[in-house]
């Protein structure tokens, strides 16, 4: 007996995968891609997507009619009120400051340490076991000890963001060093480049795209980490606002804070893209890291 066929009709799997990724190889697909990436059309599609999200939320709140499911309008009203009385602005400032400090410190330690681990086998052999161990202990697991050691103020939150950033940036930078083509090093040696020149002119620029990729992932995760930290113990910040509003059943305020969180995340990613495109384009051009 022959083996049973898995599907009755032949399926072009490559085409299916391509369509799923928005890479429809047909002429029709190419036209759609061109249309979607043109300026006005892209704006229109973004606006439609957001409108569809709001509409779906509005319909759900109307249909389900739950007392704790505010409508978009109620959330917007709460948002306006919280922005007006300055509560939300203060929360945003607190959370963004925590993220910024932790992120910058994480990059400041992660990039040099990643470069050193990539360049020097002894440093790598010494640091790798502890790095490999700690990367599997998530930041959230350190929340309680961090709060116990550093209190509910700034230091514990910044420490969590730092911890999360440092490993992502370090491991990416280290793999960037490993990925430098041997011919690039050899040609530099061929021209007489030695020591610090090799580092400054070849190794560092060759790894920028990897460090940027790690930093961008870390930036995205920072929002989740700071909210996690603020949910558990804080007296200000967006995470604190979410949990505080929830405790008072002020669901409209809670969702308003969540809305701001999402918008901030998008804004941070856009800023990272702009910075990359403006100042780091030459370093990330060849690969898609950080793009």
């Amino acid at each position, binding site marked *: 007996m022959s083996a049973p066929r898995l599907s009755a009709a032949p399926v072009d799997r490559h085409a299916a995968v391509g369509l799923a990724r928005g890479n429809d190889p047909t002429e029709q697909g190419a036209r759609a891609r061109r249309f979607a990436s043109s300026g006005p059309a892209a704006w229109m599609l973004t606006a439609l997507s957001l409108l569809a999200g709001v509409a779906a939320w509005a319909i759900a709140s109307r249909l389900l009619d739950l007392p704790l499911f505010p409508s978009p309008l109620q959330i917007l009203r709460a948002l306006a009120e919280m922005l007006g009385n300055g509560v939300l602005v203060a929360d945003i400032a607190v959370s963004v400051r925590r993220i910024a400090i932790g992120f910058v410190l994480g990059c400041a330690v992660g990039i040099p340490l990643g470069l050193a681990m990539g360049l020097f086998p002894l440093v790598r052999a010494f640091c790798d076991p502890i790095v490999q161990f700690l990367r599997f202990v998530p930041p959230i697991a350190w929340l309680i000890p961090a709060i116990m050691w550093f209190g509910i103020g700034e230091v514990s939150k910044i420490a969590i963001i730092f911890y999360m950033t440092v490993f992502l940036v370090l491991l990416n930078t280290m793999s960037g060093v490993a990925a430098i*083509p041997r011919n*690039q090093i050899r040609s530099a040696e061929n*021209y*007489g480049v030695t020591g610090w020149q090799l580092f400054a002119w070849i190794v560092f620029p*060759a790894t920028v795209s990897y460090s940027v990729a790690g930093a961008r992932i870390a930036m995205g995760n920072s929002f989740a980490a700071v909210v996690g930290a603020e949910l558990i113990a804080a007296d200000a910040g967006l995470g604190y606002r979410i949990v505080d509003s929830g405790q008072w059943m002020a669901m409209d305020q809670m969702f308003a804070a969540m809305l701001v969180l999402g918008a901030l995340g998008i804004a941070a990613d856009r800023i990272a893209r702009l910075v990359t495109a403006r100042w780091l384009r*030459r370093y990330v051009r060849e690969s898609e890291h950080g793009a």
Partner: protein
Amino acid sequence: MGPEATRAPDGAARAGNIGVRHVTFAFGGAPAVLEDLSFDVASGEFFVLLGPSGCGKSTVMNLIAGFEHPTKGSVIAGGRNVDVAGRDRVVIFQDSDSLYGWLTVRDNVAFPLRVLGVTARERDERAVAALKLVGLQGHEGKYPAELSGGMKQRTQLARALVLDSPILLMDEPFAALDAQTRSILQDELVQISVAMRRTVLFITHDIGEAILLGDRVGIMRAGPASSIKETIPIELPRPRRRGSVEFGALYERIHQSISEEVQRALRREDSLLK
């Protein structure tokens, strides 16, 4: 133009000479890749090293470049023992990944001058001149990722030429290119090497390319423990054409010699499998 036109003028320094003397090379404790390899390349000569895949051609280049060191024997370039990599022997790699992706074409070509401490203005002028020589004028501001394979190899060539190094070491530089681009670059390389009187050690496994380019062709034995089997002078006038009777006769002769080596390698592999 005859091959003798590529020789350095009488009285020129021996800066372009290469001497490989009884070189044996093995990676660690592995069997020797090269054994008792000896050959000489005269200053200004275009010498092609031809051999079956895996015979150790690139290892020879790495030894002359100073990237590897002989287990036994010695390598001499410009009258001096080769110890480390040096800008008197510039390498053009098969893969264009030796170009720096974050530098423009002009800055890539100017890079060796930057290492030498040449002023920004002078290195820009010299880089632009070298790029013109390889036909890349108008592409100075592009980045390597924006270039075709042939343009990347031209950039590598320009970067090597900007230094006035007496020796160019080329490791199958056109192997990854399409036939048409390869043919154009081969012609240009001959013109440039004749005009600039550089010593060229060119590695390839393409017999036609070896006859088109070389003043002499060194045929390597199949590895391991490879060495030069025979050296054949190519005394055809330039420009050489693949269709000529003499070209065909040389091709047959070299093909016969390489085929024997390939057969030998296959017999050896068979005996190892039994």
